[in-house]
């Protein structure tokens, strides 16, 4: 089981690469507190779909865990796991555990 900092590194790397590809200036030097998909966030829904696919793939490649981030639970959660980097890391840990 990878620790929190390893997952955070992986998420940040994914966010930065995506930000480069989609030219999202605000996220090119993202950190743990960066807002992602929220009313004040910098991602649109298409970028979010891409980010989720990137992260799922990277988790599978690096840690051999196949997870689905955009599941029913995530979609109906009161606090969206996609709002910022740290909530996304929490969601990943939770899914790898189960």
């Amino acid at each position, binding site marked *: 089981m990878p620790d929190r900092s390893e997952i955070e590194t992986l998420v940040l790397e994914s966010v930065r690469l995506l930000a480069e*590809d*989609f030219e999202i200036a605000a996220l090119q030097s993202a950190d743990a507190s960066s807002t992602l998909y929220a009313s004040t966030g910098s991602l*649109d*829904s*298409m970028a979010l*779909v891409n980010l989720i696919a990137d992260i799922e793939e990277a988790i599978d490649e690096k840690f051999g865990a196949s997870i689905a981030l*955009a599941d*029913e639970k995530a979609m109906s959660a009161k606090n969206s796991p996609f709002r910022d980097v740290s909530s996304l890391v929490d969601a990943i840990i939770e899914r790898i555990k189960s």
Partner: protein
Amino acid sequence: MNWIETKLSAFDERIACHEAGQSWTYKDFRKSIHAIASKLPSTPATIAIQTETSIEGLAALLAIAQTQHIALPLPAELPIVEQADMQEIAAADYRLTGTGQTIALVEQASPERPKIYEQLQSSGLVLFSSGTSGKPKGMLHNLDALLDRYKSINTRQDRSLLLLLIDHIGGLDSAFRTLFAGSTLVIPEARTPEAAGAAIAKHAVNILPASPTFLNLMCLAHTPEKHDCSSVEIIAYGAEAMPAPLLQRVAEAFPNADLQQKFGTSETGAVRIKSENKSSLFFKIEDRDTEWKVIEDELWLKTPSRIIGYLNADESSLEADGWYRTGDLVEEGSEGHIRIIGRASAVINVGGQKVHPAEIETVLRDIPEIEDCRVFGKEDPITGSAIVCEIVSQASHETRAWKRLIRNHCRVKLAPWKIPSQVTITQNLNINARLKKA
């Protein structure tokens, strides 16, 4: 003597077909038709055609024409399980098996005849297409009406390669056009680029009807460099959308060939068309038997050879007044020209935006390392559907690197919602029995 017999007997000494190392004259072919006709039952029946050769399968179809029987062609290449399903759906009473002297009609137990057979007042033909539910979709043709379209075909001396099988409307159209013109059918040993190339060189084939997928495989296998394909004068492509860059590559690989687009559907038979010009994918329907119209981007056709109905599928695409809704989406150009842009059923809805897989595939194929690709939708909880692309490449990039390459390439050419969010890499795409991408 019926018109089929009259027409074929005029070509007696000519070669009808080269198949499995054997050459058949038209006389041999007519003998085979007569031999099979003499074995047919006296009361109307449904007959599964499982002859060992394609040419004898064609002879069986012509033997059944102008009787009250129904033909169900089942080439040996079809998986056994599928053949069993098809016989069950079509309620086949007999199987015609063997080759030459060993051809035999075997009676078998069959389920109740489908109701739709009652509407048939001539010979019938059951063809299957891949259904959306997983079970093959059976359709009933009036075989006589289908054949009538070849009655006035002009005599020619072509050598035409038969790649599609005789359970496919495109294969049957190629075969009948060749035979009723007194030309020669060349059937390759296998339906591979290698075998096709060998057959073209050996028999100086001048007409090559093939799907874009198969032509792409031939280019990738360097078939025209390994085998002498200089005899090819006409490449007739159809059955699926042709990407413009592939058209260009095919033209370069076969410099002597005139590229002609063909069009037809399993439900209507072949429709005669004329391309706007050599390099254009736009065409005009020029067929005196066919009416057409475009409703909400979908092509509608009306032909006398339309199927009577489906054996096991919903008939909502068949209008009571004879129109058939093809499910093909078209773009209208100038002066009545149209271009096929994809299948209505393949359209992916991404967050309310309609996306045609073919458009994305065309853009992806511009990336030099991509040999072929297939784009499809996958359920996604955020946008309804996400775009997935499967690419064929020998290059050894990691998935992440591929994704970034694809994103950067697509970003300048496609709207954001059309950019694939998932990428998978394979060595080969699945090609189905109809030589199209599965």
